[in-house]
């Protein structure tokens, strides 16, 4: 195991507001790294720093370094190639206004893959990985936006997987998905760990406990502490961590 993603003294501001305050942590290759914390604690900002979509928010300012495999993401010359290495799933399901097939093929096509057979295989594989294939295999040319919320969320996941990323960032992916499907996706993710590093932002602390190798607890823009899942839940350094993770907050 080696370090895949490293945050070194990362501070993010939106205008005057601090969104992340001096974050230091390392994410190992091919692990599930979970981030938990209450709303507005900087979790989504953390993900945006990894693929540099933070740059698209004009008021943002990032200090410190985020590196992937030792390479500072700020020094990457082709930011689009960087983003293709990182799959992103945000909490609100977004079906693009095109067919289900085109939704999944969107990223690969932008990369220049045009071979029909290759795309067919890729679409099928990604929809199977996101546990959506059985529900949509007979209507791949239906509009992605006409799917239900939970189905669109799995479509979003399939899109993220379509680039065969080395890092998969999931921000509250299960918010619109029923518990049974959530469990199926969790199984798939556990399988995907063989191939990629997974950064899992979740409000379900039990999900973090089931899946994560390491857990980080964010609160009010600060990294309170992070460590091995077992230790974080059973014997955290700070009292507040234990109370939050075990659902004993307030």
């Amino acid at each position, binding site marked *: 195991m080696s370090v895949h993603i490293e945050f070194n003294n990362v501070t993010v501001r939106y205008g005057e507001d601090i969104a992340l305050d001096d974050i230091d942590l390392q994410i190992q290759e091919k692990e599930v790294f979970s981030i938990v914390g209450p709303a507005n604690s900087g979790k989504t900002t953390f993900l945006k720093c990894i693929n540099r979509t933070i740059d*698209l928010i*004009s008021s943002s300012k990032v200090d410190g370094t985020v590196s992937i495999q030792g390479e500072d993401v700020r020094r990457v010359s082709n930011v*689009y190639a960087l983003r293709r290495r990182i799959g992103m799933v945000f909490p609100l399901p*977004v079906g693009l206004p*095109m067919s289900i097939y085109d939704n999944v093929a*969107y990223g690969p096509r932008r990369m220049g893959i045009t071979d029909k057979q290759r795309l067919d295989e890729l679409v099928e594989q990604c929809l199977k990985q996101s546990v959506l294939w059985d529900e949509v295999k007979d209507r791949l040319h239906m509009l992605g936006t006409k799917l239900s919320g939970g189905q669109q969320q799995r479509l*979003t996941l399939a899109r*993220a997987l379509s680039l065969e990323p080395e890092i998969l960032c999931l921000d509250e992916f299960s918010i619109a998905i029923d518990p049974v499907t959530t469990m199926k996706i969790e199984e798939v993710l556990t399988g995907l760990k063989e191939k990629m590093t997974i950064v899992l932002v979740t409000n379900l602390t039990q999900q973090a406990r089931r899946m994560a190798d390491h857990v980080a607890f964010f609160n009010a823009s600060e990294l309170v502490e992070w460590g091995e899942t077992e230790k974080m839940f059973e014997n955290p350094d700070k009292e507040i961590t234990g109370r939050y993770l075990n659902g004993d907050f307030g």
Partner: protein
Amino acid sequence: MSPVSSSNPFAAGGNEIRKQRTENIAKNVMLGAAILLIIPVLVIIGYLFYKASPVLSWNYIWDVPRDLGRQGGIWLPLIGTFYLVIVSLMLVAPVGILAGIYINEYAPNNWLTRCINMAVTSLAGVPSIVHALFGVGAFVLTLGMGASLLAAACTIAVMTIPVIVTATREALAAVPMAFREACWNMGATKWQTIRTIVLPNSISGILTGVILEISRAAGETAPILFTGAAASVAVRTATVGDKLMPYQLDDRFMALSYHLHVVAEKISGMPQEMKYGTAAVLIALIVVINSFSITLRLYLRSRKKW
């Protein structure tokens, strides 16, 4: 439970009845104001067509004006206005749409963007007669176009560009931000995102905005007054082909709005119905263009994908 409400617990109390009455009065007053809007439209159109009815016929539309418009038809001004719309559209659409895309999709919040926005707003506030004088100075004289269809179309283009930029921005802003973010997260460039997601889902709004604005501007007299409109023109109208293409870009041309101005005020012994006929055809042309544009919008909206 009190004895009063025990008979009918859902009966409205005095306070409730007063609130409902106020609500009804407010609604009806506003409805009345809204109905007032319809009256001028019906009166104008009805009166115009009633007064014009003696001349209105296919022959009136297809025939060329004779004796300075005292006799004959309306074809040359009608086709002139049509060409004015087409040429203006071809000039202004690319610039206005591309500028609108830049401002909505790319422009950072800096002094240049603020300058552009200020220019758009200021340009929108300039009266059309001032645009006409600018057109004379810039296109007719400085660029040497002379008073011509092209110079008039350029003037209309400058006059309409702020509205077209604004219409483009609004249409683009109606595409949810989440679509763009989803594409960026997959490593799509801004242009790829615009081309594949943003434009296909906003083009209907952009096009209808452009068409509506140009047709409105083409109904105005001021911008073409000094830049190319003529009270009468000497063009060949012998064959159908000549009639369909009577003007070159550097010709002076007849247009409905200017023709109306001329027949209504400048020519003595003008029959009343010829004045109303011109106005009726002008209104009809604008209604036709607007209906086309609105139909296009309704059709494309019915195919909206989210």
